């Protein structure tokens, strides 16, 4: 058995031991606050068992293992539905960025440990009302204030900001230069005076994203990460950092097996729907597509094991998988007819077609919209020209509103 497979089995043993208390069935009926408390407990147990910061340096409380080990653990953990959602972004981007760029190394070490244990949560303050896909259009500004900075502005779509202790943020420090050149990156204390978080209720009924307002918030200069004016580069680094994540060819919705089961159990025109050509076609096409994504993932893993760089086709995962989840969820609801109308907004998206369908649009927008991903593939992989950008090279404060 390969070392990685042994590791996977050790992980599974740990997860099995944790499951009765923390896995999806144990969370049934929890309020968000209860779930968060349970999540913090699980994170501490995971830390103590040596499954936290798997691919991070031991200097920062990590295990010093490979990206493959991390992906292997994440893939196993995903099957259980553990309460880890609150910590995904925190440990995915902001905390690794602190490890790279945090000025006060002792402070960083302390934060990393607390974040790994689930005691503290970090958020990522990027999108704004004036810039989502167009990140460099952001308007939250910092101005020199004595030996530090004063920040004013607004962020939006910030996941878990209402529970966050800290955040990393991109701000505009110089509006007189081209838009992506006048940005500076900081960390911010979310409990500081002048920070206000307002949850946004989403279409599916939950409120994990927020608006965050900054009103004369004081930042020390040692909260700055990277150079003044280097914020855009750090923002790109942030988005690149989490490349080694577990993928899900089901688009983080229900597995195709569940659709096959539904089609076998549902009667259509007096016979099982699995015998209906339209349903069969949908199953077959989805299977072929998902199998392809799974093979892309397997090949990427093998390449990493062999010390090679995986190909750019990995960038297709979210684009292809979430779209298909959305359509398959629609079809699953349609297939059931009026039996699909009863709805439980708290049902698990990986097991329920209703919540999978209603929350699918979020997946097609967050973390790079379909359109941005297509642009990225077209430009970075295929070498096609950039879109027409009228604001290119123009000082930010001269761009027509």
């Amino acid at each position, binding site marked *: 058995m390969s070392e990685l497979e042994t590791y996977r089995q050790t992980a599974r043993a740990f997860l099995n031991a944790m499951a009765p208390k923390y896995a999806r069935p144990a969370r049934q009926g929890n309020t968000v606050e209860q779930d968060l408390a349970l999540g913090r407990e699980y994170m501490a147990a995971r830390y103590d068992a040596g499954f936290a910061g798997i691919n991070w340096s031991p200097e920062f409380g990590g295990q010093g293992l490979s990206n493959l080990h991390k992906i292997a653990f994440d893939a196993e953990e995903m099957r259980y539905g553990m309460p880890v959602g609150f910590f995904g972004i925190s440990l995915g981007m902001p905390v690794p960025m602190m490890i790279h760029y945090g000025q006060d190394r002792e402070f960083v070490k302390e934060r990393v440990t607390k974040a790994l244990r689930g005691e503290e949560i970090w958020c990522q303050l990027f999108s704004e009302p004036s810039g989502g896909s167009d990140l460099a259009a952001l308007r939250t500004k910092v101005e020199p204030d004595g030996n530090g900075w004063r920040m004013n502005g607004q962020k939006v779509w910030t996941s878990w900001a209402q529970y966050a202790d800290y955040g990393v943020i991109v701000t505009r420090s110089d509006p007189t230069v081209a838009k992506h050149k006048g940005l500076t990156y900081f960390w911010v204390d979310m409990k500081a005076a002048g920070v206000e978080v307002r949850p946004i209720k989403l279409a599916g009924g939950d409120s994990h994203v927020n608006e965050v307002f900054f009103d004369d918030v004081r930042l020390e200069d040692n909260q700055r990460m990277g150079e003044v004016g280097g914020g855009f580069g750090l923002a790109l680094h942030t988005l690149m950092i989490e490349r080694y994540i577990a993928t899900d060819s089901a688009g983080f919705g229900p597995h*195709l097996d569940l659709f*096959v089961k539904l*089609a*076998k159990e549902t009667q259509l025109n007096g016979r099982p729907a*699995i015998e209906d050509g339209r349903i*069969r*076609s949908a*199953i*077959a*096409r989805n*299977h*072929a*597509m998902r*199998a*392809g*994504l799974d*093979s*892309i993932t*397997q*090949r990427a893993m*093998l*390449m990493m094991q*062999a010390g090679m760089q995986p190909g750019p*086709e990995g960038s*297709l995962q979210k*684009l*292809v998988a979430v779209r298909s989840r959305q359509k398959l969820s629609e079809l699953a609801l349609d297939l059931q007819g009026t039996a699909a109308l009863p709805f439980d907004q708290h049902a698990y998206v990986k097991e329920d077609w209703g919540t999978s369908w209603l929350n699918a649009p979020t997946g097609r927008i967050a973390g790079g919209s379909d*359109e941005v991903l*297509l*642009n990225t*593939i*077209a*430009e970075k*992989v*295929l*070498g*096609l*020209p*950039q*879109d*027409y950008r009228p604001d290119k090279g123009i000082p930010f404060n001269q761009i027509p509103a």
Partner: protein
Amino acid sequence: MSMLYDEGQQAIATESRRVLDARMDKGRLLALLEQVGGIDQPFWDTAVEQGWTALALPEEHGGLGLGLTELGLVAQAAGAATSGAPFLTVGYGAAQALLAAGHTGDLAALAGGEKLATVAFAEGSAPLPAKSVVSFADGKLNGTKPAVIGGLKADLAVVLASTNGTPVLVAADLTDVTRTAVPSFDNSRLYADLVFNGTPAVQLAEGAAALGLARDVLARMAVVTAHEQVGGAEALLNIARDYALTRKAFGQPIGAFQSIKHRIAELYGLIEVARANCIHAAASEGTEEFLIAAADARLSATEAYDTASRDCVQIHGGIGVTWDQGLHLHMRRARSLGIEQGNLLFWEDLLVDQLAGEAA
């Protein structure tokens, strides 16, 4: 087998593409479209010379002892070049059937390219008819197999027939068979109705074993074809990309318009999904996963090639529909390959039967 190509496999991919790039000629291929019965002889000579006919046959029968992965890579190169001669796939399929049944007498001649073999399974909309209209009794075949791939030139065929309603798989020498050419939109595939009239044949398998073997051979050929489809689709993606970079409209390259660039990016997605399925299917040769993997490869590759030929022509505008520009070579090939080795409907049904546990 690993899903990562080793050095030898990469060399096969590079070399086959290099040889075909140097020797294939669009004018020659276009001319073949307007004649019935013409085969692209330079391609076939190249295939024999390069050992592609021997690639996936065992060494004891004059082969090179390699497998589906290697043959798939050659097929991918052939697909990119819309190169002719269908025997790369059906010759392999026939040889696999003969091998499985222990009828190895002709294998060396097939490996060396001295003989051409084909597979005659399909009858219209049934790629794998359980009750063939061709009967086999007392060692003789009677009846007609329609539009057999390579039927105009093949020396022998593996035929799915029936004996009193029971499926049988037989091998027949085609020397004295009447062949009626089928004029088609892709003539170099050499489609012909094979009219058996007391044709002597040797039984390879019967009953469920015959259907099972035929299905395995069809799945293998489908995987080879899926590679060919991926090669064709990838060639079209590159052609579309290059055109979108050079052709200008409204003061900029048309590739700067999202209607064009997103279309091309979507193609990339279809092709990479199909490619990954092909690699997985070839690597699963001989395992329990093979049939499902073959279906996945076949479904995604057919979708990729059909879509690529549709979209690539569209991106070209008027020039894309001209005879001389030749995109229709791909468009025609996408559809002929889509029909050969089982259409989408067949593979969808087969896949769902497997997934739903209703397999025969």
